[in-house]
């Protein structure tokens, strides 16, 4: 069991999140991809906390804060998504083109 395994796993999850962020058409799925990226960060923090900082475990604290903020962000994101769905009747990212120069 090594630190590097966990870090590689987190890096893979992060890259999957980035891929989903760029390619998804459905706005809900974009939000899910952001959650994946935040979870990758959390995994990083927890791995560092266990292997490099086992006495103070500041990484665990950091991860708890990230979880808190991610929950708030998801709530706000879905509220905005509901508002836009009421007005535009779609969640397709390609249709959100009112603001273009």
């Amino acid at each position, binding site marked *: 069991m090594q630190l590097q395994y966990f870090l590689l796993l987190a890096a893979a999850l992060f890259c999957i999140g980035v*891929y989903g962020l760029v390619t998804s058409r459905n706005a809900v799925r974009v939000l899910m991809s952001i959650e*994946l990226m935040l979870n990758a960060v959390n995994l990083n923090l927890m791995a560092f906390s266990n292997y490099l900082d086992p006495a103070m475990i500041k990484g665990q604290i950091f991860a708890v804060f990230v979880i808190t903020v991610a929950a708030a962000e998801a709530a706000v994101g879905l509220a905005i998504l509901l508002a836009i*769905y009421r007005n535009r009747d779609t969640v397709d990212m390609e249709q959100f083109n009112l603001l273009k120069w």
Partner: protein
Amino acid sequence: MNLAEGVQLVSFIILAVAMIGAALGVVLSPSVVYAAFLLGAVFISISGLYLLLNASFVAAAQILIYVGAVNVLILFAIMLVNKREDFQPVKFAWVRKAVTGGVCAGLFLLLGTTIITTPWAFSTETPIGDDAIYLIGEHFFSDFLLPFELASVLLLMALIGAIVLARRDFLPDAALTSDIENLKLPERPRELVSAAKTEQ
């Protein structure tokens, strides 16, 4: 390798495979409902990984908050916007996907190289283990007091803001046709906007 390490390694491999597979499902599956359930699977596997990392409190928090709150919220959102719509195909979508895939693979290689080549400063201190929860509490009320208090303001505001935005306001018809008090920007939309609207 003794028995405990073997069990740890095997559970790590199972959790890692489950997590990566579910995460790929989240971004690739055609149905967004399946994606949401697979997201729950990702969260649960990550919580298992936290257990391997001696962090039982955060593992529980992960399940409670991510699976119990965030994932349920996402499922609610999918149900509320549940119009079955087939997105208009975009030309050269596969080019974009291929390029993005290439970039992400490159990013992974870069991060992987960094992770493997960096000499991490492994600590030799004894892990705190299951006493972590006491230590977390102490941290919250000593050196992490400021972010802890600020997070309470953030949560209060997110709560209020989400309600304000998601609440359905019933306006009198007069307000909908008049220029004022219709919950819209006072500036008129530009020409481009109205043209785009009539097309639909």
